C-alpha cells in the first residue's frame, strides 16, 4: 500500500503531526473525545478536528483526579491534557456521552488552562421527534459557540463543503472495508486500524486524496489476488479499539477480522450526510440514523440486530467483543446481546480490555481456543 507509511507516521506521531499542521497551515486545532462530534462544523470553521484517544504514556497526573474505577480511555485523555502534551490545542469539544466523559469534561474545564472548552450536550434518546428537534437546536448552538470561540462565521456554504469532504472520506473507508471484507488478505488488520486511526488525525483534504488513491490501488490488487476461503472470518464489537496488537494475534491463529462495530471503526463511517439545504439539520440526521452507541437510546434491541445482521452480511463465523473495563453502557448491553447471539447460533467470545492489555501469550491462547471452536 503506497500511502501506508504516511498513515503510520501520522498515527505514531499524532501530536507532532498536529503541531506541525498547525504551524504550516495556520489552522486552529480542535480536540474531541467522541465519534458523535460533528467534525463537519469544525471543518467548516476552517479548523482541524483531532480525536484524542487515551494515551500510550504512563499515567502520572490523571490519578490524582480520577479514582481507580475509571476507564483507561477517560483517564488517558485527561493525562494528555494535564501533561501538556496537547497544549497546542486551541480548544476541546466534549459531547455528552457517558457518566465518565461527563465528569471528564468538568475536570478538564477546571484544570486545563489552555484552549477553549465546549460542551455539546446531545440528546441521550434519539427516537422521538422532540429529541430530533433538540439535536438540531443543540448543533446550531454548537455552530454559534464554536464560531464565537474561533472568531469565524460558520456559513452554510462552508458546512456543505465540509459535508462533501467527510462524505467522501466515509465512502472511501467503507469501500476499503468492503474490499477487505471480501478478501482479508488485501491488507492486515493492523494496517486497516492504522488507516482508520489516521483519518481522525490527518488533514482531511490530504486524507481524502490518500484514501481515494488507496481505494483505487486496492481495487487493482483485489482483481489480481485470489480470495482465501480458509480464513475464519470474525467480527469485532465493542466501544473503542486502540490496540492494534490484537489483529496479528487473531490473524496468526487463523482468523481474519472482516468488519467491526467500534466507534473507532465502522460506526465512525457508517451513514452519509444528505448534501442538501439546511446542512445542520442534515448533520443531525446522520447522528440520529448512524449505528448507535450504547450510551444513547434508540430502541431496545437494535444493537443486537445490527451485529447479527453484520455477521450474516459479512459471512462471519463468530464475534469477539472487546469491552473496555469500566465502560458501563457496553457492559449493561452485553448479557442480552450475548443471549440474542446464542439464539441466533453465533459463537461469541468476550474479552475485557484495560490498559495495558493482557500479556500476549495469554491472549493468543484465548483467541486460538475460540477460533479452534469455529
Amino acid at each position, binding site marked *: 500500500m503506497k500511502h501506508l507509511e504516511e498513515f503510520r507516521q501520522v498515527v505514531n506521531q499524532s501530536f507532532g503531526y498536529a503541531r506541525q499542521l498547525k504551524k504550516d497551515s495556520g489552522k486552529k486545532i480542535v480536540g474531541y473525545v467522541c465519534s458523535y462530534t460533528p467534525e463537519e462544523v469544525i471543518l467548516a470553521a476552517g479548523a482541524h478536528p483531532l480525536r484524542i484517544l487515551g494515551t500510550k504514556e504512563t499515567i502520572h497526573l490523571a490519578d*490524582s*483526579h*480520577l*479514582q481507580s*474505577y*475509571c476507564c483507561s480511555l477517560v483517564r488517558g485523555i485527561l493525562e494528555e491534557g494535564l501533561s501538556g502534551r496537547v497544549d497546542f490545542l486551541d480548544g476541546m469539544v466534549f459531547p*455528552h456521552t*457517558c*457518566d*465518565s466523559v*461527563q*465528569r*471528564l*469534561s*468538568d*475536570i478538564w*474545564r*477546571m*484544570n486545563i488552562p489552555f484552549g477553549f472548552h465546549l*460542551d455539546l*450536550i446531545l*440528546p*441521550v*434518546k434519539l427516537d*422521538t421527534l*422532540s*429529541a430530533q*428537534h*433538540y439535536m438540531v*437546536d*443543540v448543533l446550531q*448552538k454548537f455552530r454559534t459557540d464554536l464560531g464565537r470561540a474561533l472568531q469565524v462565521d460558520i456559513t452554510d456554504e462552508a458546512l456543505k463543503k465540509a459535508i462533501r469532504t467527510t462524505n467522501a472520506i466515509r465512502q472511501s473507508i467503507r469501500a476499503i472495508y468492503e474490499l477487505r471484507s471480501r478478501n482479508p488478505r488485501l491488507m492486515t488488520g493492523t494496517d486497516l486500524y492504522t488507516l482508520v486511526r489516521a483519518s481522525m488525525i490527518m488533514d482531511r483534504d490530504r486524507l481524502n486524496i490518500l484514501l481515494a488513491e488507496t481505494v483505487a490501488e486496492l481495487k487493482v490488487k483485489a482483481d489480481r489476488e485470489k480470495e482465501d476461503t480458509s480464513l475464519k472470518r470474525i467480527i469485532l464489537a465493542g466501544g473503542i479499539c486502540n490496540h492494534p496488537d490484537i489483529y496479528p494475534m487473531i490473524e496468526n491463529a487463523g482468523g481474519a477480522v472482516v468488519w467491526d462495530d467500534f466507534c473507532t471503526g465502522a460506526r465512525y463511517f457508517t451513514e452519509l450526510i444528505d448534501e442538501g439545504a439546511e446542512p445542520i439539520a442534515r448533520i443531525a440526521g446522520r447522528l440520529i440514523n448512524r449505528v448507535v452507541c*450504547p*450510551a444513547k*437510546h434508540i430502541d*431496545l*434491541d437494535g444493537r443486537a440486530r445490527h451485529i447479527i445482521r453484520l455477521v450474516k452480511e459479512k459471512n462471519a463465523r463468530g464475534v469477539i467483543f472487546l*469491552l473496555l*473495563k*469500566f465502560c*458501563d*453502557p457496553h*457492559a*449493561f*448491553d*452485553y*448479557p*442480552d446481546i*450475548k443471549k440474542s447471539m446464542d439464539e441466533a447460533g453465533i459463537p461469541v467470545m468476550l474479552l*475485557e480490555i484495560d490498559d495495558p492489555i493482557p500479556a500476549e501469550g495469554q491472549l493468543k491462547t484465548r483467541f486460538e481456543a475460540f477460533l479452534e471452536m469455529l
Partner: protein
Amino acid sequence: MSDIKLELDKRKTKLEKKMQNIMAGYYIDAKMARQNNKKVAWITSGGPVEPLLAMDVIAVYPENHGAMIGASKMGVDLCEKAEAMGYSSDLCSYARADIACCTVNGGPIGGLPEPDMLVCCNNICGSVMKWYEVQARHFKVPLFIYDTPVCHTDYTPEMKRYVEAQTREYFQFLEHETGRKMDIDRLKEIGKNSVEGAQLWQETLDTTMSRPSPMTAFDAFFHLALIVTLRGTPQTLEYYRELRDLMKERSQAGIGAVPKETYRLLWDNLPIWHRMKWLSDKFAEHGACLVADTYTSAWCGIKRELNRDDVIASAAEGYTYSYLNLGTDKMAELVLTMVDKYQVDGIVMHSNRSCRPYSFGQYDLQKIVEREKGIPSLMIEADMVDDRSFSESQVATRIEAFIEMLRQRKGA
C-alpha cells in the same frame, strides 16, 4: 434534663417505627396493585413522580429497593447472581442487585411488584437508562425516558424547549398507559405537596445547624425514604412535620445525637448501606457527628422550582437542574455553602465504586474544600451495596487517623 431526653428518645423510636410501618404499608399496597386494578410504574429516584400520583399509578423505586437490599446485607448474594448472568462486577450495585432480584424474587421483600411501565429520568446518571432498558426487555413493558441534558454550566433555552416537550410527552404516555386524562389541577395539588414536603425535609435537616446537632446524617439516610418514595402525599407531610418538631425540641433541649459532640462532619455521596450502624458507631465513639450530607439534601433542591404556576416549565427545570446533573464546580459551590451553614470541621467522602457521576470529581472537590475552607477530608473507598471489598479494619484505621488530625487541628 434526662427526663426530657428519655421522652424525646421515646418519640424518636416511635417515629422510626412509624416510618417502618408506612414503608411496609406502601410496599404491601404496591404488591396488591393488580388485585386493586392499579398500575405500577418503576421510576428512578430523581424522576418526576408527581404525574404518576396524579394518575393513581403506584410508583415503585428500584433504587430504594437497592438501598434496602444493601441495608439488609443481601447485596453480595444478588450481585453475584447478576454476575453469573453476565453483568460485570464493575456495574452499579443497585442495578446488579435489582436485575438479579427480578429473576429470583429475592431480597428483603421478596422482589418488587412487576411493573406495567418504566419511567427513567437520567438526571442522576446514565446507568439508569441502561438498567431500565434491561428491565424493559425483561418485563416487555413500555419505557419512557425523561432525558434531562446535563447542565455543566447552564440550563440553556435549547434544553428548556426539549425537556418541556418531554414533560408533555410524559403526560401523553401516562394517558395512553392508563386510559385516563391527566388532571392538571390534581397534579398542581400534588406538586404543591411535593414542594412542601421538600421544604419540611429541608427544615428537618437544618435543625442540625445547632450545637450539639439533634440528628446525624445516618438518621437522615433513614428518614429519607418518604421524600424519595411518597413525596407529594399528605402522610409524608404529616411525618416530616412531626420529625422536624421533634428535632427542634431536641435541639432546644440541647440533646445531641452524638454524646459529647466534638467534631462536626459532612458526608458526601450515597450511604454505605451495609455499614450504616457500624459507621455511625465508629464516628460517635470519637465524638464525631455527621451533621449534614450532600445526598439527602439533593431532594430539597430539586423541588424548589416546582412551586411556580406553570407546571410544565417548572417541572422541566426543577428536574433538569438537579445536583448530580450539574458540573463538578457547581456541586463544589453547594458543598462550600454547606460547610459554612452547618459549620463543619471536615468532610467524609464515600468514593463509591457504583456511582461514577457522584464519585468522579471528588478528588477535585476535596482540593477545593481544602483550599477555600481550610478543612481536611477523609476518602473512604467502598460501594453502597456490594461489601465484598469493604475492609472494616482498614476503614476503622483511616477514621481514627482522620479524627486524630482533627483533634490536633482543634488543639492548635
